[in-house]
């Protein structure tokens, strides 16, 4: 079969789930109702750190309308701990509450009001303990220990290398080195170094976490959950209840945003336990303040030292990063390990020494958030790059270009060679922002670049079914959370099978129906799940061709698929006709299977990234010297995506990434005082509004079809966010002469720094 131009892939098709979303028909977890369903509410610790000496739920339990009230003492019939990296997180606090808002007891009742009232009947005695809220408090001498025992290892074999350090608050350490940084830095002509801080921020998915759990008459468990990885949730619940995986079904309706907040189990264990105890379905829907108590981005303190030769050649990078992972590990240790591995960014660095610690504190657990630890490191490295350019009297764009890893170059031994062209992204970003043109005196411009690995090894499977009417079902477990994966998967299947997009239905993830997919995160769905769908569709295509080749006695190479038909030199058979040939009647279906499982490799982290995510950001900013308010007037993002399967949706992803990045750059920070979160509501925690977005925002793509994904695609969606902070700060430094090391760049912080400069 000869290559033909792409008809569906590469086109800006409107999203396949758009109609139900603009008509209000799309169903999210909290829109679902089951007969007899109870509503749950959670009693949470008011203390950052406290011994829980007594929890008495007896009065709540007997209140009319209450089906069950639980404390950890009641969970004798299940494993009471969960967590992906370590099983250190109790379903309900056991003896100690380690952060404000930790679930201590829970109630399921006939309605939410009754459940809320019943919480007031629960008696809890706390003995407050000294707490460690900041990295300094957690790492200082005599620091209060967040955990005193050794946690159980997690459920996931690929995380088995993670280790806590008993007797400290260090929950995991990562070290990586190559070459000899001491000698290299001693011989460098310029060494720039500083410590940069990145604040704790929350995802603020507009839909807070929600679960509906129901046990059936056979003792099997079904959950409708707002999760980005139903298969990881299934493993956690199987372990918790001692059930075979096949007896647990996790169904994922539409998600109201994820951004990493809905990776791995969050409220699912508690909802399942309540449903079991209540003997009826239970809905547990978090409020926005409860989401702030469930997960956040890991704050970080990053000390980076970079050495250059006089000619601008980068010779060495040392980086020591401490990440605040909060009270429970969640996936924090992997965030730290995986991000730190790429702390050198998209640059050729012969001598490298990287040390990172994941540190427990008495705050909301830190987990995955778009960028997975990389934004924290890029904030430091990309800021220092501009500091160095200044000291070397070099153009920041040129200095980056000089040191970029080239296409095909090794990043680390055993890992995937660089699969994109950073210089092309940088060139386009610089051109679009008008880098070489003189700008207005009251504007500053800055650039920054990023590189990020995707999770490896990982597994995605897909099934494609061709029905007797020629329509197609795609079964895959990539979760649609707004990023457009359903549309992209449909486009891939439609392209391979030569059917219109409207003939393809992508089934909602359901572990009883749709096959294994490791996770919807790490920008991996298009590349990995999409590739599995492509292979599965190709399997169906081969079956179609085989049936026709055998029936007509022609060679397979003389057959082609075209507009829902197999075309032979002298005949054209619709898929419906081919299926009749195959089955002798109008019945049966062709089923294709795709498995993408690259497996373990000799790469430093045990698997080779399936693609490198690469992007460049360029910002033009202004500042109001009177108020310190920074305004991003223009922003250009260029991401190297291999191929844009759907340019419209991809553009939407990257625009959203830029504006989300502006959140932690200019506005967002979870503020604690005396162990209490001060701003865990949307009244007090400001995320970007429409009028905060740059008036001119352009997201462009480099497409060289050089990715390992379908049609040469790579992953995208995180890359646009990562350069935002350093690009804005670099622009601000060029405008004002002031270098910022702490985020967010609030008016107060900027105003104070401008005043200090003036003195």
């Amino acid at each position, binding site marked *: 079969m000869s290559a033909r131009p792409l008809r569906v892939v590469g086109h*800006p098709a*409107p*999203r396949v*789930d*758009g*109609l*139900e*979303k*603009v*008509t*209000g*028909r*799309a*169903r*999210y977890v*909290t*829109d679902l109702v089951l007969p007899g369903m109870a509503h749950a509410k959670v009693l949470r610790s008011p203390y950052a750190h406290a011994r829980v000496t007594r929890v008495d739920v007896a009065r709540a339990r007997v209140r009319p309308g209450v089906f069950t009230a639980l404390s950890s003492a009641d969970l004798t019939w299940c494993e009471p701990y969960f967590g992906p990296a370590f099983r250190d997180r109790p379903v309900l606090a056991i003896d100690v509450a380690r952060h404000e808002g930790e679930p201590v007891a829970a109630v399921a009742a006939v309605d939410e009001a009754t459940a809320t009232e019943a919480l007031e009947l629960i008696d809890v005695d706390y003995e407050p303990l000294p707490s460690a809220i900041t990295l300094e408090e957690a790492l200082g001498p005599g620091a209060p220990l967040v955990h005193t025992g050794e946690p159980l290892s997690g459920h996931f074999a690929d995380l088995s290398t993670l280790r806590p350090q008993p007797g400290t608050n260090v929950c995991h350490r990562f070290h990586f080195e190559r070459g000899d940084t001491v000698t290299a830095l001693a011989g460098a002509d310029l060494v720039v170094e500083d410590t940069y801080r990145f604040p704790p921020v929350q*995802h*603020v*998915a*507009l*839909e*807070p976490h929600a679960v509906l759990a129901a046990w059936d008459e056979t003792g099997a468990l079904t959950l409708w959950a707002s999760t980005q990885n139903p298969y990881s949730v299934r493993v956690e619940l199987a372990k918790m209840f001692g059930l075979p995986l096949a007896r647990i079904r996790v169904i994922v309706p*539409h*998600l*109201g*945003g*994820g*951004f990493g907040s809905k990776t791995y189990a969050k409220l699912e264990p508690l909802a399942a336990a309540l449903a079991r105890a209540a003997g009826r379905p239970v809905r547990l*829907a978090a*409020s*926005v303040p409860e989401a702030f108590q469930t997960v956040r981005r890991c704050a970080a303190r990053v000390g980076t030292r970079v050495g250059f030769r006089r000619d601008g050649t980068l010779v060495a990078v040392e980086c020591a990063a401490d990440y605040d992972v909060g009270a429970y590990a969640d996936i924090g240790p992997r965030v730290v390990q995986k991000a730190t591995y790429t702390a050198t960014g998209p640059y050729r660095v012969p001598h490298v020494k990287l040390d990172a610690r994941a540190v427990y504190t008495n705050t909301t657990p830190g987990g995955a958030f778009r960028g997975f630890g990389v934004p924290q490191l890029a904030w430091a490295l990309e800021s220092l790059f501009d500091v160095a350019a200044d000291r070397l009297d070099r153009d920041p764009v040129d200095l980056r270009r000089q040191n970029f890893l080239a296409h095909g170059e090794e990043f680390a031994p055993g890992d995937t060679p660089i699969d994109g062209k950073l210089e092309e992204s940088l060139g386009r970003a610089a051109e679009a922002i008008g880098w070489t043109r003189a700008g207005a005196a009251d504007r500053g411009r800055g650039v920054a670049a990023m590189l990020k690995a995707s999770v490896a090894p990982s597994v995605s499977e897909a099934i494609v079914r061709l029905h007797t009417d020629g329509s197609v079902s795609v079964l895959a477990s990539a979760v649609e*959370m*707004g*990023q*457009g994966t359903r549309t992209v998967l449909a486009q891939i299947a439609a392209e391979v099978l030569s059917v219109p997009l409207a003939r393809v239905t992508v089934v909602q993830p359901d572990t009883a129906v749709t096959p294994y997919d490791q996770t919807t995160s790490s920008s991996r769905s298009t590349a990995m799940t999409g590739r599995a769908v492509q292979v599965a569709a190709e399997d169906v295509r081969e079956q179609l061709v085989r049936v026709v080749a055998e029936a007509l006695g022609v060679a397979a190479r003389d057959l082609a698929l075209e507009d829902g038909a197999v075309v032979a030199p002298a005949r054209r058979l619709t898929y419906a006709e081919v299926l009749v040939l195959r089955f002798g009647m109008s019945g049966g279906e062709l089923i294709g299977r795709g498995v993408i499982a690259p497996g373990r490799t000799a790469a430093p982290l045990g698997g080779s990234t399936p693609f490198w995510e690469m992007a460049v950001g360029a910002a033009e900013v202004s500042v109001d010297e009177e108020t310190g308010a920074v305004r991003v007037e223009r922003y250009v993002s260029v991401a190297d995506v291999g191929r844009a399967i759907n340019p*419209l*949706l991809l*553009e*939407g*992803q990257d*625009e*959203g*990434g*830029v*504006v*989300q990045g502006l959140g932690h750059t200019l506005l967002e920070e979870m503020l604690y005082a005396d162990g209490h979160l001060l701003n865990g*509501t*949307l*009244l007090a925690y400001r*995320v*970007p*509004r*429409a*009028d905060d*977005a740059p008036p001119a*925002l352009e997201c462009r793509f480099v497409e060289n079809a050089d990715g390992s994904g379908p049609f040469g695609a790579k992953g995208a969606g995180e890359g646009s966010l990562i350069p935002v902070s350093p690009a804005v700060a670099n622009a601000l430094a060029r405008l004002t002469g002031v270098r910022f090391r702490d985020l967010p760049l609030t008016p107060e912080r900027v105003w104070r720094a401008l005043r200090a400069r003036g003195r």
Partner: protein
Amino acid sequence: MRIRLAVNGRAQDLEVASHALLLDVLRDVLDLKGAKRSCDTQVCGACTVLVDGLAVSACTYLAVEADGRSVLTVEGLADGESLDPLQRAFLDAGAVQCGFCTSGMLLTARALLRENGAPTRDDVLHYLRGSLCRCTGYRKIVDAVLTAAETAR
């Protein structure tokens, strides 16, 4: 308490608690799930519906306040199978991602266009200050509202 109101053009005669919120009555009593609960504090706009043509946060609006009034939810935007120009524009512009803010965005925009049929970009930005979206970066939403205004003219 007894309230009589029109919801999406249909008369409703309901018995509601005096403290019942319009959002709960719409979602749980009338099974109109398009308006979403999120911040509960009139900040995010996910619960926005129109009462007599004006945008309100149904999460903090008492159902009894809607007595004798006309309520429009996202389910009432389309005319049968024929989409409102705003819905069409949101689809075509890629202004929808996760969809959780979409119904509130659409109704807020509808209130704007009722007030001002030829809004500028700044008018739209100002009107959308009470509607948060964490997915899109807003540009495509603003574009969609401007396109819909043009289509409707």
